[in-house]
């Protein structure tokens, strides 16, 4: 599927899993991706989340299913797109993706790489890009920019609008810079 700066109208069903640790904004990233699809590209999207009782630091994942048809089963069974934000997530989910899946990797924190030849791996130093922008917290938004350019599930405009609609007032500049940096890295 071609990704342009136009919207990316999805055909069929795509399963996206974002995985990292609590505190990285994984669930927020899943929310924004789902919102971009459901509200800005007018396809169906469902986001579910999985986390433990810890407030921060525990394993955390967000599943987003996007489809042009009605979505029945809400959870991701085989990710077409796997986004790995941390080493633990890489060990847990690294090899769980569908055949020929796209895997987006935060290269600053991930050491264990999936060892499957069919997977299409793309790397981004999301954490250090975020640090250079002044807040490590926006690594998730950097990754959303990268998703918009590489994953072929939602387009640039939709994702950007969803980011801006989901962040606290006063942080627009920082988040836009994070999003653009992630997007540019994927171009």
């Amino acid at each position, binding site marked *: 599927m071609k990704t342009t700066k136009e919207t990316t109208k999805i055909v069929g069903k795509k399963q996206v899993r974002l995985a990292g640790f609590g505190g990285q904004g994984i669930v927020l990233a899943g*929310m924004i991706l*789902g*919102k971009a699809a*459901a*509200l800005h590209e007018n396809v*169906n*999207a*469902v*986001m*579910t*989340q999985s*986390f*433990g*009782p810890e407030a921060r630091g525990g394993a955390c994942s967000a599943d987003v299913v996007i489809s042009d048809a009605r979505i*029945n*089963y*809400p*959870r991701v*069974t085989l990710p077409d797109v796997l986004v790995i934000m941390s080493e633990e997530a890489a060990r847990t989910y690294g090899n769980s993706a569908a055949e020929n899946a796209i895997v987006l990797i935060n290269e600053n924190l991930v050491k264990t790489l999936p060892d499957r030849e069919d997977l299409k791996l793309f790397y981004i130093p999301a954490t250090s890009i975020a640090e250079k922008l002044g807040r490590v917290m926006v690594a998730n938004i950097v990754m959303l920019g990268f998703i918009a350019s590489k994953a072929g599930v939602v387009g640039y405009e939709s994702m950007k609008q969803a980011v801006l609609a989901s962040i606290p007032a006063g942080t627009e500049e920082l988040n836009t810079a994070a999003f653009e940096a992630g997007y540019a890295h994927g171009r």
Partner: protein
Amino acid sequence: MSSKAVRTGAHFMSGDEACAEGGMAAGCSFFAGYPITPATEVAERMSIRLPQVGGVYIQMEDEIASMAAIIGASCAGAKAMTSTSGPGFSLMMENIGLAAMLEVPCVVVNIQRGGPSTGLPTLVGQQDVMQCRWGSHGDYEVIALSPDSPQEAFELTIEAFNLSEKYRTPVVLLSDEVVGHMTEKVIIPDSKKIKTVSRKLPKKKPENFIPYAHEEDDVPPMAIAGEGYHVHATGLTHDELGYPAINADAQERLVQRLIRKIRNHVEEIIRTEDAFLDDAEIILVSYGCSARAAREVVETARADGMKIGMIRLITVWPFCERKISELAALERVKKFVVCEINAGQIAYEVERCAGGKAETILAGFMGGRIFTPEELYRVVREAAE
């Protein structure tokens, strides 16, 4: 038109938040509760939304008090709700019986998690279905609705308020962790297009008012506290004036009426989503999040040529007895497969109503996660052999 209470438009919203927005759209002006995973987001959103419309949000010391507070608020004329999960639902049971006995409209949201006891705070179960029906002591009828999406959580919370006002009875919105924490598009319509129902008020003057006088539909008008009507509210068996009457005749009249006012209206109350019942030989029965896996299995099995159909309980209680009995009586209907995240609850209802005319098979999953369509399909294929 959008209003402060009705956020008209398209939203990407969780099932829990949609419950809160449904309450707002239904005219809820009082929420009392105690936070508990996975229902906390209902309370959280109500704590933000109610003050915006001049309503009251109060965090109580526990769920016993939460239930008591919404009964009090409803007696004072408010549309009132609370939300909880398993452990809190257990604590609410005594006062749910009080609401049934006093005929106080109110809505209890239960976002089910795995039990028993503290169980699985962050993970799904559907194990409170029978507790919802029979959890408080004594004979009473209950209405319970079960959404399978955030959109339906919004709509059914409104419906829960409408039914509770119409029949003067507590109504349970029986959701689950998967639906509660699932985020999807929710379309909130124009406020003018949302149908809301309010309780019957007395037509007589206070001096001529009989609180529990006979009415055609068995639902007496409800006087609002503080408007000059004298109403004695007691959990004891009471006569038409509302005063304790500890004898068999009063018990017969009162409790039979409480039951009748729901049972005589089951055809109006019960809603199901049916698929392929015209030629089905095997029928899946499910509700809440389980129905989403079931629907996937029905689509796959139909594509594989299997004569399978599906009933999704939108209204869990009262149970759709007539539908199951009529289907079971058909020659072609061989089996019901009931899929639920418990060790068998609705399965017993289906078995009872099938009356031995069709076999009932339980696809019961223990919870902690929603079962996959593949797991359910395995049970269905075995049933088909």
